[in-house]
């Protein structure tokens, strides 16, 4: 298990917090809480050694969706596609 933290510039806080997903095989859980000034991401992943992949996936996501919030990701081996899908679900749920 590895814990990774990232921060990306973001200026659009969500209307409300959101929770999606489950810590199950090939999936992950996302907890999103509104914050100010940036997207703070903490990833706990069951698969070690993918720091760079995580950075790339998250960088790309937050460049497109600059949502200012704290994101807690509990990951059980989700692929980049699933990670992006869950993050999009979270910000959709966070809309007013």
């Amino acid at each position, binding site marked *: 298990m590895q814990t990774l933290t990232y921060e990306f510039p973001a200026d659009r806080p969500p209307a409300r917090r959101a929770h999606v997903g489950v810590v199950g095989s090939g*999936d992950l859980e996302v907890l999103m809480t509104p914050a100010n000034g940036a997207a703070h991401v903490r990833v706990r992943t069951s698969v070690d050694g993918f720091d760079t992949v995580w950075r790339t996936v998250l960088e790309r996501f937050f460049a497109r969706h600059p949502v200012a919030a704290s994101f807690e990701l509990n990951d059980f081996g989700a692929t980049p596609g699933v990670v992006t899908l869950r993050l999009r679900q979270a910000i959709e749920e966070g809309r007013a």
Partner: protein
Amino acid sequence: MTSTTDWAARLERTSFIELDARARAAALLDDGAAYELCGPFDRIESPWLEPQGVVPQSDDGVVVVKGRLGGRPAVVIAIEQAFQGGGIGEVSGVKIATALSLAARDSRAGTTTAAVLLLETGGVRLQEANLGLATVAEVCSALLELRALAPVVGVIAGALGCFGGMSIAAGLCTKLIMTEEGRLGLDGPAVIESEAGVAEFDASDHPLIWSITGGRKRTRTGLADELVADDVATLRSAVIGAVAQGVPAEHRSQRIGELRAHIEAARPSEPPDLAAAGGPPMTRGRAWTQALADGGVNGGVPSVISADVTLGEDLARILTVVPDPHSPYHRARRGEVGLREGLALASEVTGTVAEDAHLPDERRRPIIALVDLPSQAYGRVEETFGIHQALAAAVDAYATARAAGHPVIVLIVGTALSGGLLAHGFQANQVLALDDPGVLIHAMHKEAAAKVTLRTVAELDELAGRILPLSYDVTDWARLGLCDELLTVENADVPTERDVGRAKDALTAAVARARRGPRDLSNRLDSPGARRTRTASRRVREALTAQWG
């Protein structure tokens, strides 16, 4: 044959199985007022997973939603099967037990509150072994408390099914609703194969598995009540119907005679190979029972013996499961708690409660569960006839005795594993154990636990050294707050006169404490040990109670 209309219905239905736990709870409850308790943003995670390199989940895999069912107050407790195989750990277990207790509190106060358990679980979460096992005992106790006041409806929809200690909880439910996809059994196929070999149970043979544990079979043989299609609307109306029926006069786990008739109708085959039974049989149970007994030792069946022992002013009843090398159930010959033993314990305890019913509460006889047992019986015959229901009968009887004022004391003198301990001993209001290297208390044998958690035995030993609930050491176990006294003895195998005296003194003191203490298992969270090691349990209880409203 499947008719055309069946296909049309099949295509039009909304699958319940495909929903996650949170969506299942929402799908069952009435629209509107439902709200979740101890949800993800409360962040009460398991404190034991991260130190083992396992990613936790923010709700620990149990979703508790309070609301209404067909207009009646209800709480839905849904286990998330995708997280750790629905395994019950400290936090998830206490969430279930506390929600059931709170529903009982409301029901006593006049607001009858039903509970619905969505059971998709492999049983005790092996990464939290001993604490998981303890919380399953607490779940059973709280379920029985509520069941007397309001219906507790179990739903096993699948795909995972309901196994391990939680199958005993299923056996205690007022009503049990299953789908064809759902399964119910004490020991999962892989565990039986690992414990007893592929000849006993082939875990890759899916038709075999469903023919024994599947929803269709369980409803046909009366171990479940209703078989429904995997459809949200159908399940919701079945659950509302079950809740509307209220509390029956008698529950499945109390119908010991019916269960016995069911089991005795079969003739278990002679075992193919006795040598394969493995390991030495348990001998301490008989030795300690004989040493403590005032007079003779009796038994309705050869594998469950009883005796009377004078403890101060009380005459207490000792019950012990012992090996019976001639048992027709070849997987229950070495002192395991099997079909016969579960029912015999239930009969003995129920009999004692009936005999003392005319006495004032404080004069009711203490019941001593003396424990040296390798485990529950892992076998095909056992699963076919629903060993979980036999064990549920024993759990029911012990908890009923405790609630009626009988001090129930467990004295662990040797091995106490898994479902065996849940059925025989873990409903006690006082827990005693010998401080001896031969005492082993755990959720599963090391080899099988290693296999299930994808670890080696060496890795498991290393983790057990630093993760308290994983330890196989009795002094570590006592530190979890589950033990009221550890007894030092001179000879745990053949007790000396001094050992017998010590044990009698300790039992007498335990009886006095039990009479003074609560009749539920709430003291398990309030002991000095629990205050140190079960901080997560206490946090759950506090938060859930505060949010319950």
